[in-house]
């Protein structure tokens, strides 16, 4: 089996009296696409918040490539290459699509303040490289026609794409995607699946939260199912699809179609 890059060890989260996660324990291997699914309110986004430092777990520990993430700030975790997207659309609304991606490239533009201000050759070269990379990413998500429009003026689905481009710009070694295809139709989703496979083939590990079952079933190496903050099943797509507990809690009868 692939080497473990992310491990979630006995993580628990409580909001007041409400148990949002309890004894969450699973791992993701290098280069895998693992999906985290479960009913609304099962705790998937909460798990993402814990992994990326937006929320401190009540119990347990998260490790990424050997480093313990507990107590790190979100930007420090991002610096380790663990990058997330958000379930709600999240862009820099008053910047152009192109500038959004440029801001996302922040991690690559690290150079000295003096260099940047004086516009020394290295700073210029870095700036040029970032602009090229940004243009490439904008092209890749198919929004080149909108590159100079403010991100806040895009339609819902277009803003979701910008969110993904921003995350890619941050040069992830692992991507956590929270419902990336919500708001896309079947054909758009289809294209997006190619995109995800492509990203994985470039060596990026992916943890996916998504309610689009056809997509999850086709793209995942492994699926972890949560219900009320606990893991109720884990395994290959085939196993999950036919698991009675999963059908009962989550898939519903229409699942046969998936």
């Amino acid at each position, binding site marked *: 089996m692939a080497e473990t890059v992310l491990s979630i060890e006995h993580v628990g989260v409580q*909001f007041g009296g409400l148990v949002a996660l309890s004894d969450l324990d699973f791992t993701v291997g290098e280069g895998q696409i693992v999906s985290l699914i*479960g*009913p*609304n*309110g*099962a705790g*998937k*986004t*909460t798990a993402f918040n814990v992994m990326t430092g937006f929320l401190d777990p009540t119990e347990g520990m998260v490790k990424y490539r050997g480093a313990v993430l507990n107590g790190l700030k979100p930007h420090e975790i991002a610096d380790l290459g663990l990058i997330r997207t958000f*379930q*709600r*659309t999240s862009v820099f609304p008053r910047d152009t699509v192109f500038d959004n991606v440029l801001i996302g490239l922040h991690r690559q533009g690290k150079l000295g303040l003096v260099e940047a201000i004086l516009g020394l050759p290295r700073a210029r070269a870095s700036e040029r490289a970032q602009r090229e990379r940004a243009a490439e990413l904008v092209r890749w998500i198919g929004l080149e026609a909108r590159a100079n*429009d403010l991100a806040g*003026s*895009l*339609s*819902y*689905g*277009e803003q979701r*794409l910008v969110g993904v481009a921003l995350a890619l710009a941050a040069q992830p070694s692992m991507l956590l995607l929270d*419902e990336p295809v*919500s*708001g*896309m*139709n*079947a*054909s*758009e*989703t*289809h294209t997006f699946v190619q995109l995800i496979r492509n990203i994985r083939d470039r060596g990026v590990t992916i943890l996916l939260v998504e*309610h689009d*079952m056809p997509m999850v079933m086709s793209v995942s190496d492994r699926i972890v199912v949560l219900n009320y903050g606990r893991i109720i099943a884990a395994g290959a797509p085939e196993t999950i699809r036919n698991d009675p507990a999963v059908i009962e809690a*989550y*898939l*519903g*009868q*229409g*699942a046969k179609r*998936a």
Partner: protein
Amino acid sequence: MLEIRDMVCAYGQVTALKGVTLSVKAGQLVALIGANGAGKSTTLRAISGLVPPRSGSMIFEGEDITGASPQRVLTRGIAHCPEGRRVFPHMTVAENLDMGAYLRSDTSAIATDRDRIYGEFPRLADRKKQAAGTLSGGEQQMLAIGRALMSRPRLVMFDEPSLGLAPNIVERTFAIIRAIRDAGTTVLLVEQNAFAALEMCDHAYLLEAGRVVLSGAGADLIENEHVRRAYLGG
């Protein structure tokens, strides 16, 4: 019931709708499908008065509502459940539902409706006292749907109601939408799950780049080669 003619809408210099003509008959479930950025949400916003049309006309039950204020559209009986889980984040679930019934005064009927929504979405019943802003994405979406229904509209417009909902809840939501149509409420549905939308609608319009390019019975659109390729993924 609703007749829209040559409606043109723009945001600044960008023309989002370039002459949309469509009609919704009373008691029908009409679906509006199209790609990202086609103008579906803009069409709904124009109807509910959130984006003033540049030209064209909208007639609702014989009354001209072109350029009418959102308040007026709402009092005429049109409810809009916008895309992207809009809730009042600092109010509780129960208060959010009550906001949907703001224009109603029939207190006991409101209570019945509220209980019915809790019955349909038990998750919301569990979270009655929780601030809506701390709900999960899907829980917020259920709340937004519930709130639109609380105004007892005669025409209800849903913008991507299945967004972020678990598959079993999507099924239930579509069942609710069919049920309210069967109970006599007219529905205008924007949905990315084009297959489901076409399957359950009485009539459908396909929007591309701000124009209606195809319309007909749902079953006909499902069979259409172009629709299959571009929207149904195969």
